[in-house]
């Protein structure tokens, strides 16, 4: 892995005055026949720029739900959420989608590369939704292939890659658009230990170079790569 030439992942916009992410009394519930079922309760959380945070907790604790809210994919919640000093809770769905596109990258446990696209095309896909000219996109993809040492695999399809290589491509895809906030939902969940370590080393380097990372994991060893850990249980954040 050669990230020595990789520049800071944050864009040129001025840094936020407050924390990059600020959650106040965020709650999420589902209406059921028996009343409301709470998934998240009174979440108060500040994530400063440059942080590397791990969210841990048992299954059903609300980890992925919180990640979905942080990533602006989930709109049905209550409370206050500020991202880069912008009040997400007051924004329309459309504006939230635009904010997501500008500031958020996401790494999935199942990689979620598109099977009928090559590695290079998978990398190009998120850029194609960002009004970047084709020539510039090709340069960005070529640079990423070089940085992640996957130039030789650019014309391969995901099914021709190992799990670790697929996740490597997925991480590259997530950071290509230079997000301020990189979210990872159990990124090593489907990987062997060696492959998982490789991904965590990559995250660590990306974080050292300025990317703010929030990951969900069950693994204490992978959590140890982060700067701090929060734990959720039954929707509550443990003190």
């Amino acid at each position: 892995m050669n990230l020595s030439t990789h520049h800071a992942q944050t864009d040129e916009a001025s840094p936020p005055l407050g924390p990059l992410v600020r959650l106040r009394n965020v709650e999420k519930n589902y209406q059921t026949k028996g009343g409301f079922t709470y998934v998240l309760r009174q979440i108060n959380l500040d994530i400063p720029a440059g942080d590397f945070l791990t969210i841990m907790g048992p299954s059903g604790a609300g980890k992925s739900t919180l990640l979905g809210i942080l990533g602006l994919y989930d709109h049905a919640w209550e409370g206050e959420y500020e991202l880069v000093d912008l009040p997400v809770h007051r924004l329309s769905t459309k504006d939230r989608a635009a904010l997501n596109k500008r500031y958020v990258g996401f790494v999935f446990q199942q990689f979620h590369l598109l099977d009928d696209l090559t590695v290079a095309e998978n990398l190009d896909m998120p850029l194609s939704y960002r009004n970047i000219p084709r020539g510039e996109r090709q340069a960005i993809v070529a640079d990423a292939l070089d940085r992640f040492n996957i130039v030789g695999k650019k014309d391969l399809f995901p099914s021709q890659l190992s799990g670790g290589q697929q996740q490597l491509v997925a991480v590259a895809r997530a950071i290509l658009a230079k997000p301020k906030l990189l979210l990872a939902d159990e990124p090593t969940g489907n990987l062997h230990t060696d492959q998982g370590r490789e991904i965590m080393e990559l995250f660590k380097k990306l974080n050292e170079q300025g990317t703010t990372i929030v990951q969900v994991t069950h693994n204490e060893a992978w959590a140890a790569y982060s700067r701090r850990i929060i734990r959720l249980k039954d929707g509550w954040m443990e003190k």
Partner: protein
Amino acid sequence: MINLVSVDYLKTMGVALRRGRNFDESDIRRAESVALINETAAKLWPAGEDPLGKQIQLDLLKQPIKDVLFASNASPACTVIGIIADVRNDGLTSNPQQVVLLPYTCVVPPDRTLAVRASGNLSAIMNAIRAQSKAMDPQLPLSNERTIQQAMEDFTVQPRFTMILFSLFGFIGLALAAAGIYSVLSYSVAQRTREIGVRMALGAQQWDVLRLVLKDGGWLAVPGILAGGLAGFGAARVVASQIELFKVGPSDLISLLGVAFLLLCVSAAACWLPARRASRIDPLHALRYD
């Protein structure tokens, strides 16, 4: 074709006089051997030769026919005094035939056709005509009373039925095409839920997803429309005689483009529902339940 007519025939039937003159009352009263011919008949003369004033020989006036009375001065040689416009006189699909018009007093066949141009209440007009006929001769029955529209419908009823049948088949084909496009796209969207979820999670907006699915629909519809257009262009020649009645040629560009546009609209409508459904996919939900 020889027609025996009165002075007002041209005015009543709406046929234009191109050159020469019409019959006058004197021609009719004296059963003059004069004739009007149509433009097709005028082409029988060599180019540059004017038929006006020329004589034509009509066998009808030469040989006695059973039950047909002839004027005492009837002569088979008639002088052409005018040329009238061509009209469809041999069905709606055939080219105009050669026509000679003679004063109706030259020959008296057993029956006549009375043509009346009028506007207003049809029943009232028919009653007036019957009363007038009865006043002239109480023994003279009027039969086969029809408006020109009814006469036209007699010619068009079969082709119209054929066209309705074709339209029905066309409509069924259109509905099947729409259902096919809708089914294929719905299936495709269901199959691509994860892909669409990934795309939306990585920045695709609703419009991007709409465009993606509509593009897929376009790949189904546009080649189909082009192939169908070419096939229709060829097949139209087979039914050319049927559609000419409606003043539509087999190569009518407006009709072909209109049908293509209609198919495009129906295809777009069939694409729209699956595309809209795809654009409303919740990315995290789609990926979580992959």
